[in-house]
Structure formats: structure tokens, C-alpha cells
């Protein structure tokens, strides 16, 4: 696991890299906690941001890097005046973020007989929690940027 801190003219950037196996998202969650605490987000909001970080990292580990531990997931925390921005980058092909549904029918999932149909909550939860989100295909991978308003003192 690697941790860097860079300060450019605009903002402070902290970078973390984690190997692509489940459980490593916890390092990003811990870092999220300490940063959101320093930035004085409310306890509720800290927990929500931590969950968004966790789900984005899990997706990058699972769908992006496909559990290849030689590939790292890169997490960048940027503070600007208005936002805490958290970018999660993997080496995969990405997906069509705009096609992802905003609502999910939980009853339909429960009534399905296929165990894998019960899944599919990560992005839904991320979308509900973030103030703004940007997904982008890079020439070497995929980036998901989550923005959290610094003035947003209460939970969603």
C-alpha cells in the first residue's frame, strides 16, 4: 500500500494505492475517515462518505481490475474550497455510467430465484450519497470521481 501527499497551487491532493483484493478498501475507508474528520464533516456525513469510498473501491477491485493483485486501485483525495473530491481509478474498460438506473426494484430482486440478482447496490448507494459524480474512460483505465460539498454538514 502506498500513500502520497502532494500540494499543488490549487488544492491538496492525497494519493493512496491499494492492491486489488477485497478487504484492501478498508485502507481507503480509514483515510477517508481521517480526512473528513479534519475537514469537519458531520459524523453522519463521514460515515456516508466512507461507504461511498468503500463501494467505489470494491467495484474497481472487482469489475475494473478483476482481482488482479498486480494491478493497483488508485484513490485520490482532493480538497478544494467547495468540495472534497474522491477519485477512484482502475485499469479496466469501465462501463456506461449514464445507463445505470437511478431506481432499483427491490421486490423484483427478492422474488428472483437467482442469487446474483440480489446484488447491484454499490453504485445505487454511491449515487444517493454523493453531491456530484463524474465517470470517465481514461486511455489506460476508468475513473469515478465523487464530490462531497464541504458545506454539506448534515447527512443526505
Amino acid at each position: 500500500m502506498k500513500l502520497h501527499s502532494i500540494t499543488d497551487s490549487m488544492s491538496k491532493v492525497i494519493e493512496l494505492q491499494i492492491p486489488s483484493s477485497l478487504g484492501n478498501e478498508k485502507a481507503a475507508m480509514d483515510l477517508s475517515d481521517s480526512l473528513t474528520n479534519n475537514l469537519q464533516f458531520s459524523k453522519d456525513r463521514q460515515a456516508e462518505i466512507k461507504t461511498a469510498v468503500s463501494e467505489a473501491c470494491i467495484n474497481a477491485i472487482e469489475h475494473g481490475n478483476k482481482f488482479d493483485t498486480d494491478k493497483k486501485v488508485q484513490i485520490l483525495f482532493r480538497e478544494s474550497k467547495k468540495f472534497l473530491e474522491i477519485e477512484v481509478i482502475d485499469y479496466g474498460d469501465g462501463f456506461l455510467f449514464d445507463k445505470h438506473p437511478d431506481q432499483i426494484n427491490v421486490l423484483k430482486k427478492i422474488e428472483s430465484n437467482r442469487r446474483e440478482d440480489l446484488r447491484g447496490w454499490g453504485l445505487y448507494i454511491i449515487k444517493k450519497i454523493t453531491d456530484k459524480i463524474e465517470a470517465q474512460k481514461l486511455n489506460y483505465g476508468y475513473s469515478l470521481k465523487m464530490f462531497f460539498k464541504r458545506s454539506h454538514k448534515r447527512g443526505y
Partner: protein
Amino acid sequence: MENQFSIKTKKESSIPVIYLYGDVTAESDELITKTFRKLLKKSHTKIILNFEDVKYINSSGMATMLALISEKNQEVDLKFVALSSHFKKIMKLVGITDFVDTYETISEAINN
């Protein structure tokens, strides 16, 4: 980094309580589901899950909870105890709380 997940099942006032210890993630799915199935076979009308010692639940854990809801029949009441306000909120977002009642304490869950 690994968090060993474990389970203890105990009867309180003849109602089975599943105590969860550790993270509710993909890793804990099998143990939770198996434990729950065993209790379902014994035709209890109420099953309680205690989250007091759970600090982390992710989307895989949400799928595990939905699996319990889908496997039980209507006669079995599933009750969740001691969820943090955050995870209660996430379970509400997902829609789990439409099928499960949540309580602060085990005795509240037993008496309701």
C-alpha cells in the same frame, strides 16, 4: 487487514438470536446464510439478528440480507437489533427495512 467474521446463536425467551461479530461482507455471506437456513428448518416464527458488534456492512452484505428475506416465508418475522444509524439509513435506501423491523435492543425485538 483481514477481519475474522464469526457467529454465535443463542435462544432468548425461546427466540433464536444470531449474534454477528465482525464485517458483514462477501466473506461472511455463507456462514450467515447457512446459520439462518438451519433456524428456518426449525419453524421458528421470529428470528433476530444482532448487529451490535458489526462495524462494516457493504453492498455484498446487503445482498446477504436480501437473501435471508427471500428465503424465509411470510410467517417468519425477521428482526434486526442494534444497527448503527448509518447502516439503518443504508438499509432503508436499499429497501430492506420494508421487510425487516429494526430495534435498539434484543428485549424490544422479543416483545414486539
